[in-house]
């Protein structure tokens, strides 16, 4: 038995649950609405206006990062003065490695490490 296009449409409409069932009650809708609105992130409608909390948090993070960098630099300078030259060369080689970070909108993070000591021919053997 074949199902014509017209017959198919009629059967789909006849089986439509929206026509056969009651819509969600006002209480259910209100409950859903409360859940959704309560989940609103603070950034939802703040496009174009400054966000004091976020700005403060970012400033604090930058300050901490700068302070940590300054402390590390000082400690490294002391370390360099106390170490013989050979040790220092090894550190330089290690420091010459560079990294490139990617992150996708989905949250996947990719880190490439460029090692200047890497030789492709050696790995083929």
């Amino acid at each position, binding site marked *: 038995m074949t*199902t014509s296009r017209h017959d198919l449409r009629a059967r789909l409409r006849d089986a439509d649950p929206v026509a056969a069932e009651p819509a969600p009650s006002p209480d259910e809708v209100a409950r*859903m609405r409360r859940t959704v609105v309560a989940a609103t992130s603070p950034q939802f409608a703040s496009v174009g206006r400054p966000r004091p909390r976020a700005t403060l948090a970012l400033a604090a993070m930058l300050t901490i990062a700068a302070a940590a960098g300054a402390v590390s630099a000082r400690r490294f300078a002391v370390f360099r003065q106390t170490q013989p030259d050979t040790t220092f060369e090894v550190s330089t080689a290690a420091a010459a490695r560079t990294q490139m970070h990617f992150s996708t909108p989905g949250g996947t993070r990719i880190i490439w490490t460029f090692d200047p000591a890497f030789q492709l021919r050696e790995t083929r053997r």
Partner: protein
Amino acid sequence: MAPAADASDPPAADRLARLFDRHHARLYRLARRMVRTSDEARDVVQDTFLRAARSPRSIPDGPSHEEAWLVRVLVNICRDGWRKESVRRRLAGSTPAEPEIVAPESALIARTTVWRALDALPPRRRAVVVLYEIESTPIPVIAGLLGISSVTVRWHLSVGRRELARFLGSQL
């Protein structure tokens, strides 16, 4: 409707509340036609608006753009559920679960058969069939809502009709 008193950011809550008030009924109708039960449909609608709350910057301005964005999110949520269900079924080696309705009345049996056939369609194709055949939405509007071309809509419609007809024909 209750005011958004418990929101963490009042303007944000207002915008989301307006979005909800404007689109929830239409989204529920679509969701109900996309899933098996009304509870599932409510969950899908709520998840859609929760995603809106999490990605506010990606929601375009204007009712029709908002609606298209929400419909796409809803269909994607249905796709996620459909994929998980497919994997679960494959691992369990079972056939699609039948709707809960078990009754001797022929009308109910006919409805159950139609819904089993719709359940077999991938969500985007099902959305195209539902929007066109049940809601009488014009093809260019469906294309705009789902973010695909009119040609793709026609193709989904054609394949969907064929699959439904084959399934329903074999069940008659």
